[in-house]
Protein backbone atom coordinates (compact mmCIF):
# COMPACT_ATOMS: atom_id res chain seq x y z
CA UNK A 1 0.00 0.00 0.00
CA UNK A 2 1.60 3.21 0.96
CA UNK A 3 3.56 5.00 3.67
CA UNK A 4 2.00 2.77 6.29
CA UNK A 5 4.05 -0.14 4.97
CA UNK A 6 7.40 1.47 5.58
CA UNK A 7 9.23 0.11 8.60
CA UNK A 8 9.87 3.51 10.12
CA UNK A 9 8.78 5.28 13.30
CA UNK A 10 5.36 6.91 13.54
CA UNK A 11 6.83 10.38 13.85
CA UNK A 12 8.86 9.92 10.65
CA UNK A 13 5.72 8.73 8.94
CA UNK A 14 3.91 11.81 10.17
CA UNK A 15 6.73 14.02 8.89
CA UNK A 16 6.59 12.37 5.46
CA UNK A 17 2.87 13.00 5.23
CA UNK A 18 3.22 16.56 6.47
CA UNK A 19 5.89 17.22 3.83
CA UNK A 20 3.56 16.04 1.10
CA UNK A 21 4.88 12.52 0.47
CA UNK A 22 1.67 10.54 0.43
CA UNK A 23 2.73 7.74 -1.91
CA UNK A 24 5.77 5.47 -2.11
CA UNK A 25 6.18 6.65 -5.66
CA UNK A 26 6.62 10.24 -4.56
CA UNK A 27 9.40 9.19 -2.18
CA UNK A 28 11.04 6.89 -4.69
CA UNK A 29 11.25 9.63 -7.28
CA UNK A 30 12.74 12.32 -5.09
CA UNK A 31 16.40 12.91 -4.38
CA UNK A 32 18.09 12.08 -1.08
CA UNK A 33 18.94 15.71 -0.31
CA UNK A 34 15.37 16.86 -0.97
CA UNK A 35 13.96 14.16 1.23
CA UNK A 36 16.49 14.88 3.98
CA UNK A 37 15.65 18.60 4.07
CA UNK A 38 11.90 18.11 3.66
CA UNK A 39 11.53 15.85 6.65
CA UNK A 40 14.54 17.10 8.60
CA UNK A 41 16.50 13.88 8.93
CA UNK A 42 20.09 13.03 8.16
CA UNK A 43 21.01 12.02 4.63
CA UNK A 44 21.75 8.46 5.68
CA UNK A 45 18.30 8.12 7.23
CA UNK A 46 16.80 9.61 4.09
CA UNK A 47 18.69 7.05 2.00
CA UNK A 48 17.28 4.26 4.16
CA UNK A 49 13.73 5.48 3.67
CA UNK A 50 14.32 5.92 -0.02
CA UNK A 51 15.55 2.35 -0.35
CA UNK A 52 12.54 0.97 1.47
CA UNK A 53 10.24 2.99 -0.74
CA UNK A 54 11.89 1.95 -4.00
CA UNK A 55 11.89 -1.68 -3.00
CA UNK A 56 8.25 -1.61 -2.04
CA UNK A 57 7.00 0.33 -4.99
CA UNK A 58 8.95 -2.02 -7.26
CA UNK A 59 7.26 -4.97 -5.57
CA UNK A 60 3.89 -3.33 -6.08
CA UNK A 61 4.60 -2.77 -9.70
CA UNK A 62 5.70 -6.36 -10.26
CA UNK A 63 2.62 -7.71 -8.46
CA UNK A 64 0.64 -5.91 -11.09
CA UNK A 65 -1.58 -3.95 -8.78
CA UNK A 66 -0.66 -0.72 -10.54
CA UNK A 67 -0.54 -1.94 -14.11
CA UNK A 68 -4.29 -2.45 -14.22
CA UNK A 69 -4.86 1.23 -13.56
CA UNK A 70 -4.82 4.02 -16.12
CA UNK A 71 -1.99 6.50 -15.92
CA UNK A 72 -2.79 8.90 -13.07
CA UNK A 73 -5.56 6.71 -11.71
CA UNK A 74 -5.69 4.46 -8.71
CA UNK A 75 -7.84 1.64 -7.47
CA UNK A 76 -10.66 2.35 -5.04
CA UNK A 77 -8.83 0.23 -2.46
CA UNK A 78 -5.77 2.46 -2.69
CA UNK A 79 -7.96 5.50 -2.35
CA UNK A 80 -9.63 4.13 0.75
CA UNK A 81 -6.29 3.43 2.32
CA UNK A 82 -5.08 6.88 1.45
CA UNK A 83 -8.11 8.36 3.11
CA UNK A 84 -7.12 6.76 6.40
CA UNK A 85 -4.09 9.01 6.37
CA UNK A 86 -6.07 12.02 5.22
CA UNK A 87 -6.02 14.48 7.96
CA UNK A 88 -8.41 17.06 9.23
CA UNK A 89 -7.95 20.36 10.96
CA UNK A 90 -9.81 20.99 14.19
CA UNK A 91 -12.06 24.03 14.54
CA UNK A 92 -11.50 24.14 18.33
CA UNK A 93 -15.19 23.48 18.84
CA UNK A 94 -15.82 19.83 19.64
CA UNK A 95 -19.43 19.91 18.48
CA UNK A 96 -18.47 21.41 15.17
CA UNK A 97 -15.60 18.96 14.72
CA UNK A 98 -18.03 16.12 15.39
CA UNK A 99 -20.46 16.96 12.62
CA UNK A 100 -17.50 17.51 10.31
CA UNK A 101 -16.16 14.06 11.03
CA UNK A 102 -13.11 15.32 12.89
CA UNK A 103 -12.62 18.77 11.43
CA UNK A 104 -12.06 20.48 8.10
CA UNK A 105 -10.75 17.81 5.75
CA UNK A 106 -7.62 18.01 3.67
CA UNK A 107 -7.95 17.24 -0.04
CA UNK A 108 -11.38 18.85 0.00
CA UNK A 109 -12.81 22.25 -0.72
CA UNK A 110 -15.14 23.44 2.03
CA UNK A 111 -17.34 26.47 1.61
CA UNK A 112 -18.53 28.30 4.71
CA UNK A 113 -21.18 30.96 4.33
CA UNK A 114 -23.22 33.17 6.61
CA UNK A 115 -24.46 36.66 7.44
CA UNK A 116 -22.04 39.41 8.45
CA UNK A 117 -20.94 39.06 12.04
CA UNK A 118 -21.71 35.36 12.38
CA UNK A 119 -18.07 34.36 12.65
CA UNK A 120 -16.78 33.44 9.18
CA UNK A 121 -13.52 35.34 9.54
CA UNK A 122 -13.19 34.03 13.10
CA UNK A 123 -13.39 30.44 11.86
CA UNK A 124 -10.93 31.28 9.09
CA UNK A 125 -8.39 32.67 11.55
CA UNK A 126 -8.92 29.79 13.98
CA UNK A 127 -8.17 27.30 11.21
CA UNK A 128 -5.09 29.24 10.12
CA UNK A 129 -3.81 28.90 13.68
CA UNK A 130 -4.97 25.32 14.30
CA UNK A 131 -3.32 23.91 11.19
CA UNK A 132 -0.03 24.77 12.92
CA UNK A 133 -0.71 22.60 15.97
CA UNK A 134 2.22 20.16 16.11
CA UNK A 135 1.79 16.50 15.16
CA UNK A 136 2.41 15.46 18.74
CA UNK A 137 -0.69 17.35 19.78
CA UNK A 138 -2.88 15.83 17.11
CA UNK A 139 -2.44 18.61 14.59
CA UNK A 140 -0.86 18.81 11.17
CA UNK A 141 2.16 20.95 11.99
CA UNK A 142 1.54 22.83 8.78
CA UNK A 143 1.39 26.39 7.53
CA UNK A 144 -1.50 28.43 6.23
CA UNK A 145 -2.24 30.69 3.30
CA UNK A 146 -4.78 33.39 4.11
CA UNK A 147 -6.18 35.30 1.16
CA UNK A 148 -7.95 38.40 2.42
CA UNK A 149 -10.24 40.09 -0.09
CA UNK A 150 -12.17 42.28 2.32
CA UNK A 151 -9.71 43.57 4.87
CA UNK A 152 -11.12 41.59 7.79
CA UNK A 153 -7.83 40.04 8.90
CA UNK A 154 -6.82 41.87 12.08
CA UNK A 155 -3.41 40.96 13.45
CA UNK A 156 -4.38 41.70 17.05
CA UNK A 157 -7.17 39.15 16.78
CA UNK A 158 -4.85 36.53 15.30
CA UNK A 159 -2.46 37.12 18.19
CA UNK A 160 -5.29 36.67 20.69
CA UNK A 161 -6.34 33.37 19.11
CA UNK A 162 -2.73 32.21 18.79
CA UNK A 163 -1.97 32.90 22.45
CA UNK A 164 -5.10 31.06 23.54
CA UNK A 165 -4.16 28.07 21.35
CA UNK A 166 -0.70 27.89 22.91
CA UNK A 167 -2.20 28.09 26.40
CA UNK A 168 -4.61 25.29 25.58
CA UNK A 169 -1.74 23.14 24.32
CA UNK A 170 0.36 23.60 27.43
CA UNK A 171 -2.68 22.74 29.54
CA UNK A 172 -3.13 19.60 27.47
CA UNK A 173 0.47 18.57 27.89
CA UNK A 174 0.23 19.31 31.58
CA UNK A 175 -2.56 16.79 31.89
CA UNK A 176 -0.77 14.14 29.93
CA UNK A 177 2.64 14.80 31.45
CA UNK A 178 4.17 15.30 28.07
CA UNK A 179 7.56 16.84 27.91
CA UNK A 180 6.72 20.07 26.24
CA UNK A 181 10.03 21.77 26.73
CA UNK A 182 10.80 21.66 23.06
CA UNK A 183 7.37 22.94 22.11
CA UNK A 184 7.36 25.60 24.76
CA UNK A 185 10.18 27.19 22.82
CA UNK A 186 8.88 26.55 19.33
CA UNK A 187 5.30 27.70 19.72
CA UNK A 188 5.41 31.39 20.27
CA UNK A 189 2.56 33.64 19.12
CA UNK A 190 4.94 35.42 16.74
CA UNK A 191 6.00 32.18 15.11
CA UNK A 192 2.34 31.36 14.59
CA UNK A 193 1.96 34.69 12.80
CA UNK A 194 5.01 33.96 10.68
CA UNK A 195 3.52 30.69 9.53
CA UNK A 196 0.50 32.37 8.01
CA UNK A 197 1.21 33.54 4.46
CA UNK A 198 -1.07 36.55 4.18
CA UNK A 199 -2.17 37.87 0.79
CA UNK A 200 -4.37 40.91 0.37
CA UNK A 201 -6.21 41.16 -2.93
CA UNK A 202 -8.11 44.25 -3.98
CA UNK A 203 -9.80 43.26 -7.22
CA UNK A 204 -11.07 40.18 -9.00
CA UNK A 205 -8.16 40.21 -11.42
CA UNK A 206 -5.73 40.10 -8.50
CA UNK A 207 -7.74 37.27 -6.97
CA UNK A 208 -7.58 35.19 -10.14
CA UNK A 209 -3.91 35.92 -10.70
CA UNK A 210 -3.18 34.84 -7.15
CA UNK A 211 -5.11 31.58 -7.39
CA UNK A 212 -3.16 30.82 -10.58
CA UNK A 213 0.08 31.58 -8.77
CA UNK A 214 -0.73 29.33 -5.81
CA UNK A 215 0.41 26.17 -7.58
CA UNK A 216 3.93 27.54 -7.82
CA UNK A 217 3.81 28.93 -4.30
CA UNK A 218 2.63 25.72 -2.65
CA UNK A 219 5.25 23.73 -4.59
CA UNK A 220 7.85 25.96 -2.99
CA UNK A 221 6.19 25.77 0.42
CA UNK A 222 5.19 22.15 0.79
CA UNK A 223 4.24 22.56 4.44
CA UNK A 224 1.18 24.65 3.61
CA UNK A 225 -1.79 22.57 4.64
CA UNK A 226 -4.66 25.01 4.36
CA UNK A 227 -5.71 27.80 2.06
CA UNK A 228 -8.38 30.16 3.34
CA UNK A 229 -10.08 32.68 1.07
CA UNK A 230 -11.97 35.41 2.98
CA UNK A 231 -14.20 35.99 1.17
CA UNK A 232 -14.25 34.37 -2.20
CA UNK A 233 -17.29 36.43 -3.19
CA UNK A 234 -16.58 40.06 -2.54
CA UNK A 235 -14.87 41.10 -5.75
CA UNK A 236 -17.26 39.17 -7.93
CA UNK A 237 -20.42 40.91 -6.80
CA UNK A 238 -19.71 44.10 -8.68
CA UNK A 239 -21.34 44.68 -12.00
CA UNK A 240 -19.95 42.29 -14.57
CA UNK A 241 -21.14 43.43 -17.97
CA UNK A 242 -20.74 39.89 -19.16
CA UNK A 243 -22.23 37.46 -16.66
CA UNK A 244 -21.08 34.54 -18.75
CA UNK A 245 -17.54 35.77 -18.21
CA UNK A 246 -18.08 35.83 -14.49
CA UNK A 247 -19.42 32.30 -14.46
CA UNK A 248 -16.46 31.12 -16.50
CA UNK A 249 -13.92 32.88 -14.27
CA UNK A 250 -15.51 31.47 -11.14
CA UNK A 251 -15.62 28.01 -12.64
CA UNK A 252 -11.94 28.10 -13.59
CA UNK A 253 -11.01 29.41 -10.18
CA UNK A 254 -12.91 26.71 -8.33
CA UNK A 255 -11.38 24.02 -10.55
CA UNK A 256 -7.89 25.28 -9.78
CA UNK A 257 -8.66 25.26 -6.07
CA UNK A 258 -9.97 21.70 -6.21
CA UNK A 259 -6.83 20.59 -8.00
CA UNK A 260 -4.66 22.31 -5.40
CA UNK A 261 -6.54 20.54 -2.63
CA UNK A 262 -6.15 17.17 -4.26
CA UNK A 263 -2.60 17.43 -5.56
CA UNK A 264 -1.05 18.89 -2.46
CA UNK A 265 -3.34 17.18 0.07
CA UNK A 266 -4.35 20.40 1.68
CA UNK A 267 -7.65 21.86 2.81
CA UNK A 268 -9.22 24.72 0.92
CA UNK A 269 -11.74 26.82 2.82
CA UNK A 270 -13.78 29.43 0.95
CA UNK A 271 -15.79 31.91 2.98
CA UNK A 272 -18.88 33.19 1.26
CA UNK A 273 -21.53 35.84 1.84
CA UNK A 274 -25.28 35.48 1.85
CA UNK A 275 -27.76 37.23 -0.33
CA UNK A 276 -31.48 37.16 -0.77
CA UNK A 277 -33.00 35.29 -3.66
CA UNK A 278 -36.42 36.05 -4.95
CA UNK A 279 -38.20 32.71 -4.92
CA UNK A 280 -41.89 32.39 -5.60
CA UNK A 281 -42.77 35.83 -4.38
CA UNK A 282 -40.74 35.79 -1.19
CA UNK A 283 -37.13 36.46 -0.40
CA UNK A 284 -34.95 33.61 0.76
CA UNK A 285 -31.47 33.65 2.17
CA UNK A 286 -28.97 31.90 0.00
CA UNK A 287 -25.22 31.87 -0.53
CA UNK A 288 -23.92 34.38 -3.03
CA UNK A 289 -22.48 33.73 -6.50
CA UNK A 290 -25.46 31.93 -7.92
CA UNK A 291 -26.60 28.39 -8.55
CA UNK A 292 -23.73 27.34 -10.78
CA UNK A 293 -21.30 28.11 -7.97
CA UNK A 294 -22.78 25.46 -5.72
CA UNK A 295 -20.91 22.81 -7.66
CA UNK A 296 -17.55 24.31 -6.87
CA UNK A 297 -17.07 22.91 -3.41
CA UNK A 298 -17.00 19.47 -1.85
CA UNK A 299 -18.65 20.49 1.40
CA UNK A 300 -20.83 23.42 2.23
CA UNK A 301 -21.49 24.74 5.72
CA UNK A 302 -23.97 27.48 6.53
CA UNK A 303 -23.63 29.57 9.66
CA UNK A 304 -26.75 31.10 11.15
CA UNK A 305 -28.31 32.53 14.27
CA UNK A 306 -30.62 30.30 16.28
CA UNK A 307 -32.03 32.70 18.85
CA UNK A 308 -28.97 34.05 20.59
CA UNK A 309 -26.76 31.16 19.66
CA UNK A 310 -24.56 30.65 16.61
CA UNK A 311 -25.08 27.43 14.71
CA UNK A 312 -23.38 25.67 11.84
CA UNK A 313 -25.30 23.48 9.46
CA UNK A 314 -23.92 21.00 6.91
CA UNK A 315 -25.76 21.95 3.79
CA UNK A 316 -23.98 19.73 1.32
CA UNK A 317 -21.46 16.95 1.67
CA UNK A 318 -20.81 13.67 -0.11
CA UNK A 319 -19.82 11.93 3.08
CA UNK A 320 -21.22 13.82 6.07
CA UNK A 321 -24.73 13.65 7.42
CA UNK A 322 -26.84 16.77 7.40
CA UNK A 323 -26.54 18.02 10.94
CA UNK A 324 -26.22 21.23 12.83
CA UNK A 325 -24.10 22.11 15.82
CA UNK A 326 -23.83 25.16 18.04
CA UNK A 327 -20.57 27.07 18.45
CA UNK A 328 -19.51 30.32 20.01
CA UNK A 329 -17.03 33.07 19.28
CA UNK A 330 -15.04 33.95 22.39
CA UNK A 331 -12.02 36.09 23.12
CA UNK A 332 -9.98 32.90 22.75
CA UNK A 333 -11.47 32.07 19.36
CA UNK A 334 -14.04 29.53 18.24
CA UNK A 335 -15.16 27.31 21.08
CA UNK A 336 -18.05 25.16 22.15
CA UNK A 337 -21.27 26.92 22.82
CA UNK A 338 -21.77 27.72 26.47
CA UNK A 339 -25.24 26.28 26.71
CA UNK A 340 -24.52 22.63 27.31
CA UNK A 341 -28.11 21.57 27.00
CA UNK A 342 -28.19 22.16 23.26
CA UNK A 343 -26.37 19.28 21.64
CA UNK A 344 -25.98 18.17 18.07
CA UNK A 345 -29.21 17.93 16.17
CA UNK A 346 -29.55 15.43 13.36
CA UNK A 347 -31.66 16.66 10.53
Amino acid at each position, binding site marked *: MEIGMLPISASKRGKLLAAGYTTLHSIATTSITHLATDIEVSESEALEILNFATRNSALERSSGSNTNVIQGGQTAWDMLNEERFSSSITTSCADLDNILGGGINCKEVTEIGG*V*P*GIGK*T*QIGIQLAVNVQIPLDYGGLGGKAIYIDT*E*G*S*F*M*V*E*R*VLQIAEACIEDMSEYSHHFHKDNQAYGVKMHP*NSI*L*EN*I*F*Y*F*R*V*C*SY*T*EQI*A*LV*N*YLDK*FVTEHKDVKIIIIDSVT*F*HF*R*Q*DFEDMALRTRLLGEMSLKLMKLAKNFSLAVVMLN*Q*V*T*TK*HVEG*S*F*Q*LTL*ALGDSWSHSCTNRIILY*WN*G*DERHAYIDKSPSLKSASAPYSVT*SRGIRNSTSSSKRIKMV
Partner: protein
Amino acid sequence: MKREAQNLLQKVDEKSEKCTVGCPILDRNLNGGIPTKSITEVVGESGSGKTQICLQLVLSAQLPPSHGGLNGSSLYIYTEYPFPIRRLKQLSLSLLSSHPNHLLSSSDPLSRIILRGISSAENFVELLPDIELCLRYWKSRLLPIRVIVVDSIAALFRSEFGNCCFDLKRRSSLFFKISGGLKLLAERFGLVVVVTNQVVDFIEGNESVRIGNFSELCSSGRRVCPALGISWANCVNSRIFLSKDQTGIKITRFSSLLFAPHLPLSSSQFVITEKGLFGVENV
Protein backbone atom coordinates in the same frame (compact mmCIF):
# COMPACT_ATOMS: atom_id res chain seq x y z
CA MET B 1 -2.40 49.88 -9.73
CA LYS B 2 -2.00 46.27 -10.71
CA ARG B 3 0.38 44.19 -8.68
CA GLU B 4 2.08 40.91 -9.45
CA ALA B 5 0.75 37.91 -7.59
CA GLN B 6 3.90 37.35 -5.59
CA ASN B 7 3.86 40.98 -4.46
CA LEU B 8 0.50 40.49 -2.83
CA LEU B 9 2.17 38.65 0.03
CA GLN B 10 2.38 40.84 3.12
CA LYS B 11 4.06 40.66 6.48
CA VAL B 12 1.80 39.78 9.36
CA ASP B 13 3.56 41.43 12.22
CA GLU B 14 2.36 44.95 12.31
CA LYS B 15 -0.71 45.67 14.33
CA SER B 16 -3.15 47.81 12.44
CA GLU B 17 -3.04 51.53 13.04
CA LYS B 18 -6.01 53.10 14.71
CA CYS B 19 -7.37 56.60 14.95
CA THR B 20 -8.89 57.91 18.15
CA VAL B 21 -12.49 59.11 17.99
CA GLY B 22 -11.59 61.85 20.42
CA CYS B 23 -12.63 60.15 23.63
CA PRO B 24 -10.64 57.55 25.61
CA ILE B 25 -13.74 55.78 26.88
CA LEU B 26 -15.13 55.19 23.41
CA ASP B 27 -11.65 54.30 22.17
CA ARG B 28 -11.41 51.63 24.83
CA ASN B 29 -14.40 49.72 23.47
CA LEU B 30 -12.84 49.92 20.04
CA ASN B 31 -9.49 48.69 21.33
CA GLY B 32 -7.75 51.92 20.43
CA GLY B 33 -10.02 53.58 17.94
CA ILE B 34 -11.19 53.17 14.36
CA PRO B 35 -8.84 50.87 12.42
CA THR B 36 -7.19 51.73 9.13
CA LYS B 37 -7.51 49.68 5.93
CA SER B 38 -11.12 48.79 6.58
CA ILE B 39 -14.57 50.34 6.39
CA THR B 40 -16.34 51.15 9.64
CA GLU B 41 -20.01 52.02 9.47
CA VAL B 42 -21.74 54.23 12.00
CA VAL B 43 -25.48 53.70 11.86
CA GLY B 44 -28.25 55.45 13.73
CA GLU B 45 -31.33 57.56 13.38
CA SER B 46 -31.35 61.27 12.75
CA GLY B 47 -29.80 63.15 15.58
CA SER B 48 -28.12 60.14 17.13
CA GLY B 49 -24.67 61.64 16.74
CA LYS B 50 -23.30 60.15 13.52
CA THR B 51 -22.17 63.44 12.05
CA GLN B 52 -20.86 64.58 15.41
CA ILE B 53 -18.59 61.60 15.72
CA CYS B 54 -17.37 62.06 12.15
CA LEU B 55 -16.56 65.72 12.70
CA GLN B 56 -14.69 64.83 15.84
CA LEU B 57 -12.81 62.10 14.00
CA VAL B 58 -11.51 64.34 11.24
CA LEU B 59 -10.15 66.72 13.86
CA SER B 60 -8.61 64.05 16.10
CA ALA B 61 -6.93 62.49 13.06
CA GLN B 62 -4.64 65.51 12.95
CA LEU B 63 -3.12 64.63 16.32
CA PRO B 64 0.19 62.77 16.30
CA PRO B 65 0.17 58.97 16.85
CA SER B 66 1.41 59.51 20.40
CA HIS B 67 -1.96 61.07 21.11
CA GLY B 68 -4.01 58.54 19.18
CA GLY B 69 -4.17 60.39 15.86
CA LEU B 70 -2.65 59.70 12.48
CA ASN B 71 -1.04 63.08 11.79
CA GLY B 72 -3.38 63.15 8.86
CA SER B 73 -5.61 65.34 6.78
CA SER B 74 -9.13 64.21 6.02
CA LEU B 75 -11.54 64.05 3.15
CA TYR B 76 -15.14 64.60 4.20
CA ILE B 77 -17.71 63.64 1.58
CA TYR B 78 -21.17 64.77 2.50
CA THR B 79 -24.48 64.07 0.89
CA GLU B 80 -26.85 66.03 3.03
CA TYR B 81 -26.77 69.78 2.64
CA PRO B 82 -25.81 72.06 4.25
CA PHE B 83 -22.52 70.93 5.72
CA PRO B 84 -22.34 71.81 9.46
CA ILE B 85 -19.37 74.14 9.10
CA ARG B 86 -20.11 76.15 12.23
CA ARG B 87 -20.18 73.05 14.40
CA LEU B 88 -16.90 71.91 12.86
CA LYS B 89 -15.38 75.28 13.71
CA GLN B 90 -16.65 75.01 17.28
CA LEU B 91 -15.17 71.52 17.68
CA SER B 92 -11.85 72.62 16.20
CA LEU B 93 -11.56 75.34 18.84
CA SER B 94 -12.25 72.70 21.47
CA LEU B 95 -9.45 70.56 20.01
CA LEU B 96 -7.00 73.45 20.00
CA SER B 97 -7.79 74.37 23.58
CA SER B 98 -7.39 70.83 24.86
CA HIS B 99 -4.08 70.11 23.15
CA PRO B 100 -0.81 72.09 23.18
CA ASN B 101 0.03 73.96 19.98
CA HIS B 102 3.06 71.97 18.94
CA LEU B 103 0.99 68.82 18.47
CA LEU B 104 -0.85 70.13 15.47
CA SER B 105 0.97 70.82 12.23
CA SER B 106 -1.28 73.67 11.30
CA SER B 107 -2.70 76.52 13.35
CA ASP B 108 -6.02 76.07 11.70
CA PRO B 109 -7.22 72.46 11.78
CA LEU B 110 -9.86 73.36 9.23
CA SER B 111 -7.20 73.78 6.59
CA ARG B 112 -6.52 70.06 6.71
CA ILE B 113 -10.09 68.98 6.07
CA ILE B 114 -11.26 68.75 2.48
CA LEU B 115 -14.98 68.91 1.89
CA ARG B 116 -16.82 67.56 -1.11
CA GLY B 117 -20.55 67.30 -1.66
CA ILE B 118 -22.04 64.59 -3.87
CA SER B 119 -25.55 63.85 -4.90
CA SER B 120 -25.87 60.34 -6.26
CA ALA B 121 -24.35 56.90 -6.12
CA GLU B 122 -23.17 57.02 -9.74
CA ASN B 123 -21.69 60.42 -8.98
CA PHE B 124 -19.68 58.79 -6.24
CA VAL B 125 -18.40 55.98 -8.45
CA GLU B 126 -17.23 58.57 -10.97
CA LEU B 127 -15.54 60.44 -8.17
CA LEU B 128 -13.35 57.53 -7.07
CA PRO B 129 -10.48 58.14 -9.54
CA ASP B 130 -10.47 61.81 -8.53
CA ILE B 131 -10.26 60.80 -4.89
CA GLU B 132 -7.21 58.75 -5.70
CA LEU B 133 -5.56 61.69 -7.41
CA CYS B 134 -6.38 63.84 -4.42
CA LEU B 135 -4.82 61.29 -2.06
CA ARG B 136 -1.63 61.18 -4.13
CA TYR B 137 -1.42 64.94 -4.28
CA TRP B 138 -1.74 65.47 -0.55
CA LYS B 139 0.66 62.64 0.13
CA SER B 140 3.27 64.29 -2.06
CA ARG B 141 2.87 67.49 -0.10
CA LEU B 142 3.63 65.62 3.13
CA LEU B 143 0.18 66.29 4.55
CA PRO B 144 -1.25 62.89 3.72
CA ILE B 145 -4.96 62.28 3.90
CA ARG B 146 -5.55 59.45 6.35
CA VAL B 147 -9.30 59.61 6.89
CA ILE B 148 -12.19 59.49 4.45
CA VAL B 149 -15.71 60.07 5.77
CA VAL B 150 -18.84 59.46 3.71
CA ASP B 151 -21.80 61.06 5.48
CA SER B 152 -24.16 59.47 4.64
CA ILE B 153 -24.09 56.57 2.25
CA ALA B 154 -27.80 55.91 2.71
CA ALA B 155 -28.76 59.27 1.26
CA LEU B 156 -27.07 58.31 -2.01
CA PHE B 157 -29.36 55.37 -2.47
CA ARG B 158 -32.66 56.27 -0.92
CA SER B 159 -34.30 58.14 -3.72
CA GLU B 160 -33.44 56.80 -7.11
CA PHE B 161 -33.93 53.09 -6.71
CA GLY B 162 -37.30 51.42 -6.81
CA ASN B 163 -38.22 48.14 -5.22
CA CYS B 164 -38.25 45.88 -8.22
CA CYS B 165 -35.68 43.12 -8.65
CA PHE B 166 -33.76 44.85 -11.39
CA ASP B 167 -33.31 48.02 -9.38
CA LEU B 168 -32.30 46.13 -6.27
CA LYS B 169 -29.68 44.22 -8.22
CA ARG B 170 -28.35 47.40 -9.75
CA ARG B 171 -28.26 49.02 -6.34
CA SER B 172 -26.54 46.01 -4.85
CA SER B 173 -23.79 45.94 -7.44
CA LEU B 174 -23.19 49.65 -6.83
CA PHE B 175 -22.70 48.85 -3.14
CA PHE B 176 -19.89 46.48 -4.01
CA LYS B 177 -18.37 48.83 -6.51
CA ILE B 178 -18.26 51.67 -4.00
CA SER B 179 -17.14 49.49 -1.14
CA GLY B 180 -14.53 47.78 -3.31
CA GLY B 181 -13.22 51.14 -4.47
CA LEU B 182 -13.02 52.53 -0.94
CA LYS B 183 -11.36 49.40 0.42
CA LEU B 184 -8.74 49.50 -2.32
CA LEU B 185 -7.87 53.10 -1.46
CA ALA B 186 -7.94 52.26 2.25
CA GLU B 187 -5.48 49.44 1.68
CA ARG B 188 -3.13 51.35 -0.61
CA PHE B 189 -3.00 54.55 1.43
CA GLY B 190 -3.59 53.16 4.92
CA LEU B 191 -6.84 55.05 5.38
CA VAL B 192 -9.51 55.08 8.02
CA VAL B 193 -12.83 54.96 6.17
CA VAL B 194 -16.00 55.80 8.08
CA VAL B 195 -19.37 55.63 6.43
CA THR B 196 -22.62 56.70 8.07
CA ASN B 197 -25.91 54.98 7.47
CA GLN B 198 -29.48 55.60 8.47
CA VAL B 199 -32.02 53.30 10.06
CA VAL B 200 -35.43 52.20 8.91
CA ASP B 201 -38.29 50.99 11.00
CA PHE B 202 -38.35 47.30 11.64
CA ILE B 203 -41.52 45.81 10.27
CA GLU B 204 -42.89 42.72 11.94
CA GLY B 205 -43.47 39.75 9.70
CA ASN B 206 -40.80 40.74 7.22
CA GLU B 207 -38.24 38.08 6.47
CA SER B 208 -35.59 39.96 8.33
CA VAL B 209 -32.25 38.51 9.12
CA ARG B 210 -30.37 39.02 12.29
CA ILE B 211 -27.02 40.62 11.65
CA GLY B 212 -24.62 41.09 14.51
CA ASN B 213 -24.44 40.82 18.23
CA PHE B 214 -27.84 42.21 19.12
CA SER B 215 -31.08 40.58 18.08
CA GLU B 216 -32.98 43.83 18.42
CA LEU B 217 -31.95 47.41 17.88
CA CYS B 218 -34.01 50.12 19.51
CA SER B 219 -33.87 53.85 19.25
CA SER B 220 -36.36 56.46 20.39
CA GLY B 221 -38.51 53.70 21.77
CA ARG B 222 -39.03 51.84 18.53
CA ARG B 223 -37.40 48.89 16.85
CA VAL B 224 -35.16 49.79 13.97
CA CYS B 225 -32.70 48.19 11.62
CA PRO B 226 -29.92 49.63 9.46
CA ALA B 227 -30.92 50.79 5.99
CA LEU B 228 -29.66 49.32 2.72
CA GLY B 229 -30.18 45.70 3.74
CA ILE B 230 -27.97 42.69 3.91
CA SER B 231 -26.04 43.43 0.72
CA TRP B 232 -24.60 46.62 2.13
CA ALA B 233 -23.94 44.90 5.47
CA ASN B 234 -21.62 42.57 3.55
CA CYS B 235 -19.65 45.57 2.33
CA VAL B 236 -18.51 46.97 5.66
CA ASN B 237 -16.00 45.46 8.07
CA SER B 238 -17.37 46.88 11.31
CA ARG B 239 -20.66 48.39 12.34
CA ILE B 240 -21.36 50.70 15.27
CA PHE B 241 -24.94 51.54 16.25
CA LEU B 242 -25.78 54.85 17.90
CA SER B 243 -29.09 54.98 19.72
CA LYS B 244 -30.89 57.72 21.52
CA ASP B 245 -33.85 57.87 23.85
CA GLN B 246 -35.47 61.06 24.96
CA THR B 247 -37.67 61.50 27.99
CA GLY B 248 -38.50 65.12 28.56
CA ILE B 249 -35.30 67.09 28.17
CA LYS B 250 -33.07 64.19 29.19
CA ILE B 251 -31.43 62.33 26.31
CA THR B 252 -29.73 58.97 26.87
CA ARG B 253 -27.31 57.89 24.19
CA PHE B 254 -25.58 54.59 23.61
CA SER B 255 -22.91 53.43 21.21
CA SER B 256 -22.99 49.68 20.57
CA LEU B 257 -20.65 47.47 18.59
CA LEU B 258 -22.80 45.35 16.28
CA PHE B 259 -19.99 43.47 14.60
CA ALA B 260 -16.27 43.75 13.99
CA PRO B 261 -13.64 41.18 13.09
CA HIS B 262 -11.47 42.05 16.07
CA LEU B 263 -13.85 43.17 18.83
CA PRO B 264 -16.34 41.53 21.16
CA LEU B 265 -19.78 43.02 21.64
CA SER B 266 -19.87 46.12 23.79
CA SER B 267 -22.04 49.04 24.59
CA SER B 268 -21.27 52.35 26.19
CA GLN B 269 -23.16 55.43 27.05
CA PHE B 270 -22.09 58.80 25.70
CA VAL B 271 -23.12 62.44 25.71
CA ILE B 272 -22.88 65.26 23.22
CA THR B 273 -21.81 68.61 24.59
CA GLU B 274 -20.62 71.82 22.96
CA LYS B 275 -17.10 70.50 23.32
CA GLY B 276 -17.86 67.30 21.52
CA LEU B 277 -18.94 63.70 21.92
CA PHE B 278 -17.71 61.84 24.97
CA GLY B 279 -18.23 58.46 26.55
CA VAL B 280 -19.63 58.17 30.03
CA GLU B 281 -17.86 55.93 32.51
CA ASN B 282 -20.07 53.12 33.79
CA VAL B 283 -21.36 53.95 37.20
